[in-house]
């Protein structure tokens, strides 16, 4: 069962020959299987942003009210009265196609962790969804599962789901988009970051046990692994919102003490990315003893533990004399708690298991020499205008047709499955205003929150479409009476190795950047999801429409002034603008 590590295995793990050669140079030897796993994960598109980084840097990220921009687990903005809003959006597209319920549910779980890991109590969830043609049974199944999954998770953790959007287009038939957004609230002087510090400090694992969930999609196809075990080993992670709820409460309770030095959730590529990022950002080394990792299944290997994507887990660095305080809190909430390592001065990540060193990688080159690509991009071809549109036969019929079309029909059947009132602070529920409005308890402040993007605009003209998505979000916030503050984004595109897709990506970012600069509306967090394509019967690949989803947030200083949608008797109707 031992695999020989070489360029061809590296390729199965998703590394190019050139990237693998760089790994060998960094290591000065052939890497071990576990080391190769760590490299392939850290250098994956998902973790390294190797195709997009160059362009993301062009977005405006600063404003006087921005406390933390991109680079942390989520963006942080000052909303006044000593409070900060912490928010981010993240995709779970592929998992939601494979298993709609669990894929969407774990997407919500993941974005919640990104937010509460920074010290915020999550106060609102939103979701931006794109589905294929709703007439097909498969799409109906996906919609049903995704909506149930989002509700199933968010309702259970007790965070109100207050808004979102849904579009339909056949380009999403085999590749739906599930983008989930969470907004949290913290005192602005109580924000927790992920940079580890303090050589000798303990590294602590809390939450659910580690199983063989979702290990490294690429290696799954590697036939030389025990085939039987592979067949039984699903790539799908199952979420446990009950544990997540306990994790939120336990972490917030611990965060009220002074025990935590650094904290990070175990997202995609769990232990690997959290350990590498925490140590890397802090400029320290880290040593992990995998024997101490709480395990759900017997006989897990170092490789499996480092790459497992089991949900509802966090990694923390604690002050050494505070571990017992922390342990008590996690025991109270009946969660696993284990000291699994410590910080070192070596600048390496060292992974030990059963007395053997399974990995020993220098952290600086792992980060600094990560690939970054300037992929060729062609200027998007703007399609010809639609041509003359026939005047409708009758206004009545046209109106009925529009009201009944999937893109305009009421979304009540969706939001009625989401608990939008838990927390007792929801001032405007879904459907009641252009943006959702959530009050900050015991203050006059409220947040307005929206998600927006019109993919067919982006398809017709990515640059204008990107700008339009930002502008629409800004309008939706202002329409409630809020002062727009900042943006999070979720850039969903096809295969970036195709110049025309890369062209869409570059143009959309340009448009977004222009609009954000013009509106003084910085981007403080975001996520990129590439390779959203479906293989067609003729062997070609169909890309989704370019979908730069925008999540945005604004503040109302006086919640009593919030404005909703409902027309009131006797009031004048005024049209503003062109």
């Amino acid at each position, binding site marked *: 069962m031992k695999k020989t590590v070489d360029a061809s295995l590296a390729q199965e793990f998703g590394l190019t020959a050139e990237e693998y050669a760089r790994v060998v140079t960094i290591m000065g030897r052939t890497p071990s299987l576990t080391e190769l796993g760590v490299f392939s994960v850290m250098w994956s598109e998902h973790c390294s942003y190797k195709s997009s980084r160059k362009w993301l840097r062009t977005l405006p990220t600063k404003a006087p009210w921005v406390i933390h921009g991109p680079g942390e687990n989520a963006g942080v903005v000052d909303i006044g009265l000593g409070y900060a809003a912490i928010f981010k959006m993240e995709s779970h597209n592929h998992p939601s196609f*494979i*298993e709609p319920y*669990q894929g969407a549910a774990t997407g919500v779980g993941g974005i919640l962790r990104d937010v509460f890991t920074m010290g915020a109590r999550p106060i609102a969830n939103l979701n931006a969804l794109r589905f294929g043609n709703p007439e097909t049974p498969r799409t109906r199944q996906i919609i049903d599962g995704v909506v149930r999954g989002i509700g199933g998770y968010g309702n259970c953790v007790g965070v109100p789901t207050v808004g979102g959007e849904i579009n339909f287009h056949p380009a999403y038939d085999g590749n739906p988009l599930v983008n989930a957004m969470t907004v949290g609230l913290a005192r602005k002087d109580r924000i927790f970051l992920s940079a580890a510090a303090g050589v000798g400090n303990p590294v602590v694992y809390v939450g*659910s046990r580690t*199983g*063989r*969930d979702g290990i490294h999609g690429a290696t799954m196809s590697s036939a030389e692994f025990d085939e039987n075990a592979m067949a*039984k*080993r*699903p790539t*799908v*992670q*199952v*979420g*446990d919102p*009950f*544990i997540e709820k306990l994790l939120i409460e336990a972490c917030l309770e611990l965060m009220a003490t002074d025990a935590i030095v650094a904290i990070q959730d175990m997202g995609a590529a769990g232990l690997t990315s959290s350990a590498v990022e925490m140590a890397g950002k802090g400029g320290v080394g880290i040593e992990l003893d995998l024997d101490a990792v709480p395990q*759900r*299944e017997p006989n897990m290997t170092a490789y499996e533990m480092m790459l497992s994507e*089991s*949900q509802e887990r966090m990694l923390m660095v604690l002050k050494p004399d505070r571990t017992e305080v922390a342990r008590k809190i996690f025991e109270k909430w*009946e969660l696993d708690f284990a000291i699994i390592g410590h910080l070192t001065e070596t600048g390496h990540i060292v992974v030990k298991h059963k007395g053997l060193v399974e990995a020993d990688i220098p952290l600086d080159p792992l980060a600094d020499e990560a690939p970054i690509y300037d992929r060729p991009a062609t200027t998007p071809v703007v399609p010809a205008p639609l041509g003359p549109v026939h005047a409708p036969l009758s206004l009545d019929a046209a109106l009925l047709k529009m009201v009944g079309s999937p893109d305009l029909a009421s979304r009540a059947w969706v939001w009625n499955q989401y608990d939008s009132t838990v927390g007792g602070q929801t001032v405007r529920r879904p459907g009641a205003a252009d943006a959702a409005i959530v009050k900050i308890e015991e203050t006059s402040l409220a947040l307005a929150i929206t998600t927006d993007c019109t993919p067919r605009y982006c398809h017709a003209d990515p640059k204008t479409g990107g700008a339009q998505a930002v502008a629409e979000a800004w309008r939706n916030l202002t329409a409630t009476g809020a002062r727009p503050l900042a943006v999070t984004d979720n850039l969903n595109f096809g295969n970036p190795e195709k110049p025309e897709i890369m062209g869409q990506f570059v143009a959309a970012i340009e448009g977004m950047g222009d609009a954000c600069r013009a509106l003084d509306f910085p981007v403080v967090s975001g996520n990129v999801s590439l390779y959203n394509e479906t293989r067609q019967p003729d062997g070609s690949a169909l890309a989704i429409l370019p979908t730069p989803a925008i999540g945005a947030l604004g503040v109302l200083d006086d919640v009593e002034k919030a404005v909703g949608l409902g027309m009131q008797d006797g009031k004048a109707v005024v049209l503003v603008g062109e």
Partner: protein
Amino acid sequence: MKVRVTVMLKEGVLDPQGKAIGHALHTLGFPGVNDVRVGKIIDLDVEGTDRAAVQKQAEDMARDLLANLVIEDFTVEVLG
């Protein structure tokens, strides 16, 4: 004929429900309970007299609807 379709989570798939039940049983004073797994039963009344045909039909139903083969396995038992 009466048919029982039993649907269980695949081995290795996290069973949050089983975990919580195991935990509750311990606090209720049943310490000797280890692994708990939860599954579903779907009892069907299927028209027909040919055992094999009914079995086959129920398997089709399980594959099409009753089980989610991404995370679940099923067994079909014709009870007669």
